[in-house]
């Protein structure tokens, strides 16, 4: 039985003339311990997809199931790492992570929860900064706190919404390695949404492309059988990596080209003025 499953899910916003159908008949099955990367264009509905998986929104059609039963809302069993970190700036690193730990393990004694928090802060290598507040941290550090927070609640599934999208390229690289390392330690089920194919290949077991919207749907999956741990530098020389990369990118650009960009479709017919330059030769002038 898949850990997390989307069955024929559709989602749209708005009513009547403004109705926007974002997702149409999306199906996805994620097995336990699998790392799935969903790759797609900007604005194709990646965040909506993740919201549905998290339970922050409910689908219009179809169902979202976890462990076989439909989910009814968000919960710490499906931990989320938001694109904008969403750390509470008035709480320190410890307190932010503790928010999750205290909530998910409310019945445990204080020492246990404290140990939990420290373990995960340590896992993301932030112990020296454990008492600092988010405004004092860099973007990369903040995202690490977000990861620690999500993990501290011991989720069954971890959902990452373009987690490294707001970071500069160099930090991205570092954090990609971090995520790989952490996942190696904990082996949770992960669904990550990203617009970076390389990132997907680096981290995931399977890459599923999302077609461009509106009415986006998931394309065929691309397996990533590359051995772990995957080192970024070496991967560039790996033919397997390059092949998968080309396949995915090829698929995406083909899809892009063939999908009519309906957002520009309009029924209005414009009469364009017929502009022809005037004859400026002396003969015409009267």
């Amino acid at each position: 039985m898949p850990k997390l499953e989307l069955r024929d899910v559709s989602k749209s916003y708005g009513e009547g003339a403004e109705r926007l159908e974002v997702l149409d008949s999306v199906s996805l099955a994620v097995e336990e311990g699998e790392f799935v990367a969903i790759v797609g264009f900007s604005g194709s509905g990646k965040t909506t997809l993740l919201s549905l998986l998290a339970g922050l929104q409910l689908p219009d059609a179809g169902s979202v199931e976890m462990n076989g039963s439909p989910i009814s809302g968000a919960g710490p069993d499906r931990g989320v790492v938001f694109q904008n970190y969403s750390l509470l700036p008035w709480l320190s690193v410890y307190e932010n992570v503790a928010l999750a730990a205290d909530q998910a393990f409310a019945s445990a004694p204080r020492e246990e929860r404290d140990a939990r928090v420290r373990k995960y802060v340590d896992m993301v290598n932030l112990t020296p900064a454990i008492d600092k507040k988010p405004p004092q941290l860099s973007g990369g550090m903040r995202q690490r706190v977000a990861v620690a927070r999500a993990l501290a609640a011991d989720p069954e599934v971890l959902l990452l919404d373009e987690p490294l999208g707001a970071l500069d390229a160099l930090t991205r690289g570092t954090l990609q390695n971090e995520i790989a390392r952490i996942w190696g330690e904990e082996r949770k089920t992960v669904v990550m949404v990203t617009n970076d194919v390389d990132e997907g290949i680096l981290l995931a077991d399977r890459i599923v492309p999302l077609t461009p919207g509106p009415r986006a749907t998931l394309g065929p999956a691309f397996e990533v059988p590359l051995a772990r741990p995957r080192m970024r530098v070496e991967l560039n020389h790996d033919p397997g990596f390059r092949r998968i990369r080309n396949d995915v990118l090829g698929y995406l650009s083909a899809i892009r080209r063939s999908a009519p960009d309906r957002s520009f479709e309009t029924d209005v017919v414009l009469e364009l003025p017929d502009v022809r330059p005037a004859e400026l030769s002396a003969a015409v002038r009267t």
Partner: protein
Amino acid sequence: MSAKARLIRGLSLAGLEVLEPLIRLVTLEEPGKQLRLLGLYVGAPFLAFLGFLAVWSGAARAIVTNYGTLPTPAEVWREAGNLARQHAESRAAEAEFYRGQEGRAASFEAAAARLEADAGGAPSAAAAKQIALLKERAEGARSRRYSSGPTYLDQIATSLETVFAGFLVASLVAIPIGILCGLSKVFMSAMNPLIQIFKPVSPLAWLPIVMIVVGALYTTDPREAWFEKSFISSAFTVALCSLWPTLVNTALGVASIDPDHVNVARVLRLGWWTRIRKIVVPSALPLIFAGLRISLGVGWMVLIAAEMLAQNPGLGKFVWDMFQNGSSQTLAQIMVAVFTIGLIGFLLDRTMIVLQRLVGHEAPA
């Protein structure tokens, strides 16, 4: 952080950044630049103030009222000195009263003792009565309290107490309602007409109603009451007028919480109360404090008017009483009150700014 850096940070927190060049000057950091900055941002206001004093002096001589000419700055300063001196005298008299109290009681007791000694243990009925009376007087002398009207500084203290009481009541009412308004659009639309109607009402219109209601409901024996009716009336009027900025700002702050924070709460399934405590209130805190600051300012202004009518023994009553005197110092005294009110209002505002900065936080990236 070095002491200097800490000092500069403290100044910045207190809103006194203009004094920063002074610190830097003392440590001889770029003296030329510091002097220039000081000249501009400290010198200019100082000169403006001197100019104001000059214009005032001139106008004072020129305008003649039935109470004489308007008081000059020097006269107002002198009057302020008078008020301070009267306060000191009153305190001294009080101290002297209490010092002498024991002596007075002792003299009664000595007289009683002498009578007893003379009667040798078997006083006659009349003498016994005398002894009892003398002892009673000694008792009475000991329990006497110094009673006199409040001095100017007492009145300032009363005004401050009243405004804080009213401000506290206003905050206790406005913040919870504001939070509810921010959380629920339905609640907000229900409250909105009431807010819009009552917000613009002047304290002078509220006060008679408040006084009547307080008079009817507050029926504790004045001897045992902790608070006087005039205090309660003034404080409630201040509360009624100053709760609106806090309420509106709190509602706004709560309604404009970053949706990501809300999502965090949803994912973690935080309980309603935890959500309020850890996410809603801290997130809205900067706006709440902005509202509190405005409320305190409004409350202070309203207080003076309320005190005049409700007879609370504070600055408002001082102004009205001095006006009733119609003496030649009346105008100077009222001007002292004007400056006192302004200065205190400024200090209150400053304090709120400092609190606001302490509580404020940068939005996360």
